[in-house]
């Protein structure tokens, strides 16, 4: 007699709700217009968020700890949901122009969100890998979906390099399993203490392969090469999604693996600091020379990867909190900036930086909003980016990486130059005709932009609103499920 295994469904709820949205989009797409589906999906995201609130402090787990809804997962999951909702809102206005306005877009997006949530909720390497693959495969499709040469190229590039990254990651998982005999984060963390030298070597190898695999996914240099091409080639709403939600999820995975399972494993931190240093230099230096605004944002995403990764070098209590704060702020400001590009661009290539000249006199509200986003990205107070950067510096200093913090400060100067140039150009008077899409301002996009700008301003003046939640070190001490 076949017995149905007992599955504890409650911790799965946030993921299942989003998955239901994805399935609904797939099935109902034959009957309903796309906008209706988008509204359904937005509702699903909200429901998922509510279910996360319900799970707060419950610490429930399913599948024997392979999936756990601890507070860390919920905090990262909420950030993911917010980014996804902002993507959907922007796509309401721009999907038609971007020629991706069909139900499959929504379905793929929701599948990708399902994957990202799985990563955040993962309790072992296999769950994490499944989530990562769902996210990546949907991402490849999303990047290619627009019927254009550029999108095809970017999607193919994303696919080939992403597949290579996944392969490396899987190889790393195998190594770690070989060394510790466990796939569970808690199991790995428990085993890392008393390993024989031979096993330790395998573990270090596995950790480094995992690091390389993740470096592909979050775009740490020198594994970042696909990023600018993909972000600038994909439709802007997809770029928004890839550079926020996907990155948040990949960092959530990194936090789980390196802050939890491999926290005490030797070898990866020294390598990571080199990767961060290279990322900071390459990302910031390359952004400095971009003439296309969308491409500049892509490189700036690479540069921010460097800052975000610095938080991994701190203790999990400090670093995890820093990362969770930074990720939310990063999502808000990047999404708002991309939303403005999506609203104002004439074609999916984005805008040239020189086109921004005089924007303040044509679209005053958008110009002020974009300036606030750029100031926040540059880390200027009173915007929340400042505290994000501050926390990243603090994490690196507490980990003893003084030179890295100094390098990051120097790299930030380059960042300030490339963020401030467009920001200031917008306020310079201009007599040439407008170069924006004529019908650029739509309610949903405007709402998204307002959400992002108000978010970074409020979180900048009152950081405690979010940091107070994430700062509890207990949340991050239990990353590995102990």
């Amino acid at each position, binding site marked *: 007699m076949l017995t149905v295994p007992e599955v504890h469904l409650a911790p799965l709820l946030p993921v299942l709700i989003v998955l239901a949205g994805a399935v609904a989009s797939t099935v109902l797409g034959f009957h309903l217009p796309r906008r209706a589906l988008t509204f359904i999906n937005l509702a699903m995201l909200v429901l998922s968020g509510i279910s996360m609130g319900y799970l707060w402090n419950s610490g429930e787990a399913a599948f024997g700890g392979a999936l756990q809804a601890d507070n860390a997962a919920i905090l990262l999951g909420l950030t993911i949901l917010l980014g996804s909702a902002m993507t959907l809102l922007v796509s309401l206005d721009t999907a038609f122009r971007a020629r991706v306005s069909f139900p499959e877009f929504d379905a793929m997006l929701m599948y990708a969100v399902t994957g990202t949530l799985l990563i955040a909720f993962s309790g072992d390497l296999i769950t994490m890998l499944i989530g990562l693959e769902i996210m990546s495969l949907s991402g490849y499709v999303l990047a290619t979906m627009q019927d254009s040469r550029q999108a095809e190229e970017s999607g193919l590039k994303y696919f080939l390099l992403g597949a290579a990254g996944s392969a490396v990651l899987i190889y790393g998982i195998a190594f770690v399993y070989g060394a510790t005999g466990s796939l569970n984060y808690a199991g790995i963390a428990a085993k890392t203490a008393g390993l024989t030298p031979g096993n330790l070597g395998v573990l270090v190898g596995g950790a480094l392969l995992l690091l390389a695999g993740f470096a592909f996914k979050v775009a740490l240099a020198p594994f970042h090469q696909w990023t600018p091409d993909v972000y600038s080639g994909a439709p802007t709403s997809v770029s928004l999604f890839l550079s926020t939600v996907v990155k948040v999820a990949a960092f959530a995975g990194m936090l789980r693996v390196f802050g939890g399972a491999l926290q005490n494993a030797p070898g990866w931190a020294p390598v990571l600091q080199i990767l961060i240093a290279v990322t900071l230099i390459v990302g910031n230096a390359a952004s400095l020379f971009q003439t296309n605004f969308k491409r500049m944002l892509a490189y700036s995403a690479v540069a921010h990867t460097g800052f975000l990764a610095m938080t991994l070098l701190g203790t999990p209590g400090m670093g995890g909190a820093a990362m969770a704060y930074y990720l939310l702020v990063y999502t808000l400001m990047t999404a708002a900036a991309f939303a403005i590009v999506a609203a104002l661009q004439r074609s999916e290539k984005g805008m040239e930086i020189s086109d921004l000249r005089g924007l303040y006199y044509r679209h005053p509200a958008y110009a002020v909003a974009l300036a606030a986003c750029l100031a926040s990205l540059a880390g200027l107070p*009173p915007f929340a980016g400042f505290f994000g950067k501050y926390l990243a510096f603090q994490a690196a200093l507490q980990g003893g990486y003084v030179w890295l913090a100094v390098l990051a400060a120097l790299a930030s100067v380059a960042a300030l130059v490339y963020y401030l140039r467009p920001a200031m150009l917008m306020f310079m008077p201009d007599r040439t005709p407008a170069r924006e899409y004529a019908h650029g301002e739509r309610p949903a996009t405007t709402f998204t932009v307002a959400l992002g700008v108000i978010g970074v301003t409020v979180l900048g003046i009152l950081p405690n609103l979010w940091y107070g939640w994430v700062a509890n070190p207990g949340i991050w001490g239990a990353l590995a499920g102990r």
Partner: protein
Amino acid sequence: MIHLMIFLPLLGSLLLLATPRRWREEVAGFISALTLGLGLLIWRGGGAELFSVNWVPALGVTYSVALDGVSLTLALVTALMSFVAVLYTARRIENPGTMLSLVLAMETGLLGIFAARDLVLFYVFFEDALLPALLMLAIYGKPNRMRALVKFAAYTLFGSLLMLLSIIGVKYYGGSPTFALADLVQHPVKGAAQTWLYLGFLAAMAVKLPLWPLHAWLPDFHEQNHDSGVPDVMGTLYKVGGYGLFQFGLPLFPDASTELRPILMGLAAFTALYAAWIAFRQTDWKRLIAYAGLSHMGFVALGVFSLNETATIGAMYLLAFQNVYTGALFLAVGMLQERVGSINTRVGGVMTQAGALGGMTMALWFASIAVPGLAGFVGEFSVLLGAYQVQPWLAFIAGLSTIAAAAYALTAFQTTFWQGRPLGGVRVADLRHTEWLVLGLPLVVALFFGVYSAPALNLIQPAVRGVLATLGGS
């Protein structure tokens, strides 16, 4: 009251956006006058006590503000000059709403800098004052502003990011629970770490002072700003490096300050002389005043770095009143530009038709080149007197710059206001309406405090003694 004084200008700045166009000037003037009035009330009440609440408890960041001693003096000067700037903006700039908004927003940042008694809060205000300055340059600047803007931003932020690292380091290595100055002083950092952290802190302050070799942004910033000189006034007020060193640098890094004293004093003396020398060859009024200001800032730095009581008092005195007369000079240049359409120093003959403008300008220049009886003299003399007791030769070198100052100021004044009037020159109007007030108010202040320095010294002296006492006295 102190919170109202800090944030009232910012509120006013936001209010202006919602104000009908024709009332904006009045509203801005009212707000800035009210801020100044609040400042005077605080002064009458003997300063504002330290007020401290947690801001970000998880990070140990507090909202600690106080206005007393040096900071109150500087805050009052800031409020006064912002009021003067608002007066002139309203008269000079067409449709001045945006500019007034920026001036008021910047005033909040500046007042916050002086009031902050928490390092992170200080940093936040420090950067907040920067944004309006950048926007003024971007919106109202001259054709080459982009270069000046990038230079200004890059220098400033380069310094302040290193300062941010130092701030984090001071708390972390010292083991203080919060970033409040009082707590940090209780938990000092010892040894070599202190020197490194001081250098990081110094990077920001040296840019702001500015100190050679980090001064290159200054002349471009002033040259490319709007002709009216209003942004320049605010830019002058933004030179808070001397104050930051005094209020935070000395108490937090006492050993490092003593250790690096000769080198820093040398740099300061060199800055003073070098800037005066360069100023001599300028043909653009704004660049000339910028370099003159740089030279004064060399004096301020010399005074602070000398760790001598007389010199430090002089430095703070100079810092406060340099803002007044240099700011007014920038506005005078703006008036000159409005009349003759040029800010070249070789215009010639303006005095014959605009006697009051010429006279006022000259009196302000006298204050600037430290003619006794005007505010500049008290400051510069005290700095030299004090520095002489520490490093006689460096004081001598810096002292040379007062001679150079007389040379560059009087030469430029002579070629602009006297000499022959060029043939076919336009008729130049004299001072009108509020212009009298715009130049007269700062001049009265400079005169008053040049003759009767007690009110300001009563504020500055105890504060300086308090800070220097923590160093073990020298």
